[in-house]
């Protein structure tokens, strides 16, 4: 029996992986070849999807990108035994894009069958949870604190500190909430992990539950991820059936369970208190802080809200120890960040690297420049609220503090590339429009000011009283920065002002080359 791997990841499917899997099954049947098709996660080399892998000579060999019409010739070439073919890429793990990464959180993604408990176990699964079950809650928290892990959802708050607050809060009922709203454009690491290694997230949530004393977890997933929803629902059921969730986690006598909940298309529900409102069945309006969700969160109970990547890092930290994780990275940014190369990029995909890597390395060495072949002009790092980075800053190490120093942020690690055809005034306008569209409505600057911002930028574009309008834009941004209760309003000035600062010519200032 030959084993063939074709991904079930959303992006692989979006490029035709399902039809490729069907074509392989049909061709194998016709030739009487015994083939087992494993639907794995994606390796995250999206320009090679649909990627087909075979097991031959004790290793995994890759072919891609494969179209259904290539399948007959692959069989003809004996690809099941690693035969030569124009699409052959050699051993998967030697593909430079993959070989140069530091895959900690994504170690299993693409390698295993995401819904196979045997596969998960065979690749180190549940060891972190087993170690955690032998530790006192405070010792679990200490391990996470010592690892230096900071929240991967955007704010980079130390995970151990948050867990310690929840652990210390006296309450009968506490909750773990996994924030899987992943709303930032240019990000898909949460999705890839949930589709490619869902048990890892389940294990991480269970560890968090043990650490803080919570018996119930909620996984809040955006409704834009139907494939992740299907896979998570199946994985949660399997984990429960196998005794890793439920009243007796891993035979320990301790309880933890997870319920999957779907969002409904509101960016603001990624903000943790709006998310809690949504889970409670209301509109996603941001809550006033204090109280901290860690002390009074879901249904008023102490709640640890964490991003998917934060929780998915916990199993490894508990398996290998804090020092193993902390040894990666630089400064106060410890461990790795799964960067996501998106937009106009030739080799788009997932690149997990220790903090400290630069955009130059990611965009050129990994990304291979733009898809269009034109020069890169601007890159937005950290989602729609992140600053625009010009090529002159591509050598700044990707580190929370170093990015803060240049008025930018890493956020969830999304990197969106634009070539020289981009008009940065239009992107600034889009930021204001997005803020207006997604505002929860609580603060006037965010609700009204963003719409004013769109109008002001339209007048700048039309060169109507440009100088006065730009002064108005400045003061609008100032009001947003200081008069917003959350980062949607509070950080929309980042993309707007960074576009203006780095690309003034697009706003009709200085050189007229790019004047709109």
């Amino acid at each position, binding site marked *: 029996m030959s084993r063939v791997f074709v991904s079930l990841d*959303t*992006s692989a*499917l*979006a*490029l035709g992986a399902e039809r490729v899997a069907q074509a392989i099954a049909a061709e194998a049947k016709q030739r009487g070849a015994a083939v087992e098709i494993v639907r794995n996660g994606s390796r995250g080399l*999206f320009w090679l*999807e649909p990627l087909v892998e075979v097991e031959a000579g004790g290793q995994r060999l890759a072919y891609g990108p494969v179209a259904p019409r290539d399948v007959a010739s692959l069989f003809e070439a004996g690809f099941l035994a690693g035969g030569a073919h124009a699409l052959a890429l050699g051993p998967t793990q030697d593909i430079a894009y993959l070989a140069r990464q530091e895959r900690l959180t994504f170690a299993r993604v693409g390698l295993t069958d995401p819904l196979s408990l045997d596969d998960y176990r065979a690749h180190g699964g549940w060891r972190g949870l087993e170690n955690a079950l032998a530790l006192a809650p405070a010792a679990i928290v200490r391990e996470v604190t010592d690892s230096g892990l900071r929240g991967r959802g955007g704010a980079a708050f130390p995970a151990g500190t948050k867990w310690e607050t929840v652990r210390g809060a006296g309450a009968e009922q506490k909750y773990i909430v996994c924030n899987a709203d*992943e*709303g*930032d*454009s*240019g*990000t*898909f690491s949460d*999705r890839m992990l949930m589709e490619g290694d869902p048990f890892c997230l389940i294990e991480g949530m269970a560890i968090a539950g043990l650490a803080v004393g919570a018996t119930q977890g909620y996984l809040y997933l955006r*409704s*834009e*991820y*139907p*494939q*992740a929803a299907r896979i998570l629902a199946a994985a949660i059921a399997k984990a429960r059936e196998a005794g890793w969730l439920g009243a007796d986690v891993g035979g320990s006598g301790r309880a933890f369970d997870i*319920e999957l*909940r*779907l*969002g*409904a*298309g*509101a*960016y603001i529900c990624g903000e943790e208190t709006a998310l809690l409102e*949504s*889970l*409670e*069945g*209301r*509109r*996603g309006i941001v809550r006033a802080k204090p109280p901290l969700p860690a002390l009074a969160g879901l*249904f008023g109970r102490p709640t640890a809200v964490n991003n998917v990547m934060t929780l998915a890092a916990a199993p490894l930290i508990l398996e290998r120890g804090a020092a193993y994780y902390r040894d990666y990275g630089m400064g106060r940014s410890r461990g790795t960040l799964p960067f*996501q*190369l*998106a*937009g*106009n*990029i030739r080799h*788009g*995909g997932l690149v997990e690297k220790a903090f400290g890597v630069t955009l130059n390395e990611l965009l050129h060495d990994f990304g291979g420049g733009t*898809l*269009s072949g034109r020069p890169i002009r601007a890159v*937005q790092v950290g989602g*729609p609220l992140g600053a625009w980075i010009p090529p002159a800053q591509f050598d700044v190490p990707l580190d929370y503090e170093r990015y803060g120093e240049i008025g930018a942020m890493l956020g969830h690690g*999304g990197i*969106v*590339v*634009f*070539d020289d055809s*981009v008009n940065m005034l239009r*992107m600034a306008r*889009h930021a204001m429009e*997005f803020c207006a*569209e*997604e505002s929860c409505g609580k603060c006037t600057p965010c609700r009204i000011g963003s719409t004013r911002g769109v109008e002001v930028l339209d007048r700048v574009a039309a060169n109507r009283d440009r100088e006065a309008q730009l002064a108005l834009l400045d003061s609008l941004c100032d009001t947003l920065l200081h008069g917003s209760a959350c980062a949607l309003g509070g950080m929309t000035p980042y993309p707007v002002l960074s576009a203006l600062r780095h690309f003034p010519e697009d706003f009709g200032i200085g050189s007229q080359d790019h004047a709109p």
Partner: protein
Amino acid sequence: MDASLNAELSALLDAHRDRPGALLPVLHAVQDALGHIPPAAVPIIARALNLSRAEVHGVIGFYRHFRSRAPGRHVVQVCRAEACQAVGALELEAHARRALGCGFHATCADGSVTLEPVYCLGNCACGPSVRVDDEIVGRVDARRFDELLAELRDAP
């Protein structure tokens, strides 16, 4: 009160009403079953969950995913977010409007497709992205969009 609607909803409501914070799961279940959340369902849902009609109405209005009007036979969402814009999403959006002869939140004349905007489908390395019902399609240019459309119009 619409008796058949009542009967249809009661099983859904029974399945979800005891969950803490049940409103979103209920609204999802209703929309999954009926394609939309008919205004006549609002008082039924409100009563079952012990909420006011205004609360239920407010929640439906807040979330982009929920719709009060029946959609066409298929729902096509075009991503408008930055990563897709970097590879031509706005041009695709303009093409989609022309090809369907309708704007966002509207259904084309033959009733086959409702067009909606979406901000990110998580397919950001392979845009422009489109969601057709529950499937995501990547690298959609005008030609690929027309092919998808032809398939949908032929499909029941």
